[in-house]
């Protein structure tokens, strides 16, 4: 464990993430991991400070956790996963004596509430509706396509289906036909329905302290669910000023004083920015790792700084580099899905293996020979990492990967 600074805050990480623990263990803040009891032995063996906790549905016991952490002297709780965001809100409401934080967390956890709040605050959003059953979905699909003046027999424009409380691409489905609707399992309701926006999709990672953006990264999606890279191409970075304004609106509308947000946006062909959704936790797809590769700072340690009430502005200024100009290159990753129905082994395509931008992969060996048919966006079998000087080359390289077989 790195020498801890007793003058600085004491943080609780809500949720089990070895990457996060590893990073924070190397940082100068005291910490404790709050995670399910199965992690206890592991923590004991590895001297990881630990409080066992079951994060099922938020219940009256959240108070118990808050007081337990308060008694330990913990200053703030940091949510690591979508499922712990409302727990962190409840705990921080007590630790920071700010009841509003719980309500704020509930907004982040409900995609429909989140969207309405954004709309009320004057942020541009697409057409959306809530769905409680399959009938709602069919109706929305029809209405959206009627609006688009489609004739019977024309292919439908797709709509997006997102389970209320799932994160990232889990529970995210693209719906084109009534058949797609039949394939939605019951447990994914209720859900949010959105019209499809054709445009440039990207995400933002923003570290916030005292209501101010401390570092703003733009992650450019090459293809949603497959690939992303940072910093974005110069063409997208050209919109940085507008994007910054949008983030400031979010901060205002959601009344965010500190922490970390991860919103998604569309830039449509008519040059309008549409807000998709926002999460109050680290992004999936190892985006923090890409940022570390490009900029050299550890995103989880940045999280600790952003949450810790005892962090000073000097510390923040010293920790975060300057956006874009300080990047050492562009770092991207590609989520690999098997393309064939039956695969027997992993073999990185030769043109990828020989490409100077290819760094390494974390792909798992095919455990089962039969490939499950992809419903929703599903889970990829691992990531391949790339790094290089030219954003356009990197983007094209990531796009190209979609046509290659990693599993044969």
């Amino acid at each position, binding site marked *: 464990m790195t020498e801890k600074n007793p003058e600085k805050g004491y943080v609780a990480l809500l949720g089990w993430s*070895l*990457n996060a*623990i*590893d990073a924070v*263990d*190397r940082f100068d803040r005291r910490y404790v991991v709050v995670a399910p009891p199965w992690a206890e032995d*592991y923590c004991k*063996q*590895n001297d*990881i400070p630990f409080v066992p906790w079951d994060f099922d549905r938020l219940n009256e016991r959240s108070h118990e956790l808050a007081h337990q952490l308060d008694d330990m002297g913990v200053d703030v709780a940091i949510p690591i996963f979508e499922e712990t965001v409302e727990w962190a809100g409840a705990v921080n409401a007590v630790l920071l004596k700010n009841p509003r934080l719980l309500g704020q967390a509930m907004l982040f956890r409900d995609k429909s509430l989140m969207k309405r709040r954004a709309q009320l605050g004057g942020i541009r959003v697409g057409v959306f509706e809530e769905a409680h059953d399959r009938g709602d979905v069919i109706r929305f699909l029809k209405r959206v396509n009627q609006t688009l003046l489609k004739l019977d027999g024309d292919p439908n424009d797709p709509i997006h289906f997102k389970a209320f409380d799932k994160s990232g691409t889990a529970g995210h489905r693209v719906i084109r036909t009534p058949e797609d609707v039949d394939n939605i399992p019951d447990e994914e309701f209720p859900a949010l329905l959105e019209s499809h926006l054709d445009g440039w999709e990207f995400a933002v990672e923003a570290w916030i302290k005292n209501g101010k953006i401390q570092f703003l990264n733009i992650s450019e999606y090459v293809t949603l669910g497959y690939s992303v890279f940072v910093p974005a191409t110069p063409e997208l970075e050209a919109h940085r000023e507008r994007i910054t304004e949008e983030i400031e609106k979010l901060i205002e509308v959601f009344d965010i004083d500190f922490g970390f947000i991860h919103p998604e946006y569309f830039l449509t062909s008519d040059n309008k920015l549409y807000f998709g959704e926002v999460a109050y936790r680290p992004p999936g797809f190892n985006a923090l790792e890409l940022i570390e590769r490009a900029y050299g700072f550890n995103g989880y340690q940045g999280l600790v700084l952003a949450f810790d009430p005892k962090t000073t502005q000097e510390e923040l200024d010293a920790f975060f580099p300057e956006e874009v100009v300080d990047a050492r290159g562009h770092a991207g990753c590609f989520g690999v899905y098997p393309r064939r129905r039956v695969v027997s*082994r992993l073999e990185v395509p030769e043109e990828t*293996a*020989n490409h*100077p931008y290819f*760094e*390494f*992969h*974390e792909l798992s*060996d095919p455990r089962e020979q039969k490939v499950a048919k992809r419903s929703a966006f599903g889970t990829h079998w691992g990531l391949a*990492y790339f790094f290089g000087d030219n954003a356009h080359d990197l983007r094209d390289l990531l796009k190209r990967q979609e046509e290659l077989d990693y599993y044969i």
Partner: protein
Amino acid sequence: MSTRNAFAREGQTGDSDAALARLSGTLDMAIERLERARPFAKARYQGPVLDVLGRIIAQPGGLGVVRQRAPRMDAAGLFAGSDWDRPEVLLPQLVGATLMSEDPAFQALETASLARFLAVADGEARHDNLHQEGARHFLTQVLALNLKDLFGVPDEAARALGSRYELKRRVLGHIADHVGLNDVLSVLVSEIWRLLEQRSIQVGVVKDMIAQIAIALNEKGTAPGSTRLGAERLVSALFGPTTASRDDPGLEVYLDRLSVADESGLSREAMGFARAMHDTGLVSDYHAVFLTWALDYGERPLIPEALGLGSTGLDCWRHYRGLIEKLVRSAVSPATPQAAYGLAMLLERGILHHAPMVPALERQLSLSLQGAARDRIALGFVPAVPPETQLLAGVLQVLGQPLGVGQGANPTCQSARAIAMWALNDPDYLLHLITQMAEYDTLQMQFEGTPINSADLPLGLAGPGPIDADPVSVLLVAHLDRIYAEMGRLCAGRTGDPHTWINPQFHGWWVSRDCAVAVDVATGKLAGYEDFLRRFFAAYHPDYNGGRPLGHPQPAGIAVTDAQQTFVGWHAIAILRVSEDQAGRMRVYFYNPNNDSGQDWGNDVVVSTSGHGERYGEGSLEFEAFLSRVYLFHDEPLRSRYGQEIPADLIRTARDQALASWAADRQPEPAPEGT
């Protein structure tokens, strides 16, 4: 022989230079991430390093890059959480297959591990658990075991493996470039002879190495000389020990030749086999089929000649011919040729004259393996012959070569030692245990009157037991291990070392009931050490114990140290006898259940396995040197006074050697100790 040409420096060109430089940069980045990670998070960062390594080793010059970074990767934790993290226990015979693994990560891991051995062998790096000589020795063994792939023209099977095989060749070539191949063959030959002189029951690895030598000699030839002579002696013992088998014609052709051989020709065959077998301890497959064939040869008995029996053996043959023929028929086959050597040595020991032995072996012949016991034997050995044949062959070997029992790569020195001591001392009891296990899947013993039934006990240290040992061990060890652990539990709460009570109860009445321990069990510090040393002299040294030779083997505990005299661990051995060697120096001869007794324990305490009066399977040390590593021994409780007249300088010698090694940090505070 020159291999420099065959493995000339891997050529590099501009393009591949640039690629290699780039990949090296990526590797360094991946290593840095691994270095930064906390121990508990290492696993996540190992994969990327291995992935980059996999691409680097495919590049010309890549192996050099890997070697340069090997110590750093090791320190960063590349091997953490895997078997490779403990280079001292890695088995050279597994390396070849891993280098050709289907999973590139394993190829990369093995290559990185070998590169680390290379760095240590070259003196470029140091490793806590690996010294320079050990690293060099390991690499030599790896080369020896894979000579075929170093020299040979790849066969169809190898060609089908394509780049995987190519990588293996390049890695071996790289090692040969650094370690030098000139002495691999001679090192290999003398290594094999050194191992053979210990007459281990398990000769699989040695046979593999000899097969590799045969291929190398065939492909490459060597300069004439003593190395070649020694090598050819080994190869012929295995593949063509006699006139009719010299050209290694295959078993069928050989049997044809036997059918037309005349009387004197058969006699020559029998004697040729016997000579090769007793010379090396190895039995050729031809020998096995000859013995089976000879059973049905009506003219005259060829078995005694083919087993090379001496006077005791011949006497047993005359008395028990029927039983012996049954044993040959049931135990000796091309899948179990070593049973012939076991049988010959068993007869030579004369133990058939011990009344219970003949009925016990008859029972063994009729034994049918049941249930889990059958599955275990089937799991551990090739299915060419039934498990009963494997077990019977194992029984003959254990009884013929008690000191050839080895523990394999398992923490079961106690159980292996027990099997060896029973085979030596109580052979009919051992057969009784085997029957219990084979038929009822349990062992029944007692501890100070409390009955113990192994089937009711939880798994011991060895888990479900070894499968890399001889058949008798495969059958018994898992259950012996449970009983041993249970006896430990029954000793809970007693002050003192539990072996005091366990050893006599576990092994038999012949283990002396009193026990001296050099360290205080609770603190691990030396306690009453000088007294301990004196007592050992008085119990075991013929000059100070009234000239009484040791009757039964006695279990003892030693503190094993490595060549740097660093403490490695506690280990169970058995003291067999104490006597003067040819030079008149008093030596302790002992049995070490470790598979290879020849070990360097540091500061010139080097266990000898031959050349100092050792019998097959014995290790030996000069008395004081041996004593300096003993921490526990058994002694008769009724001895009234001991050790008064032992010269102080003898005690000091042993004491100083102990304090310089395993006991360095075990001195009790305050300093003056003992009586």
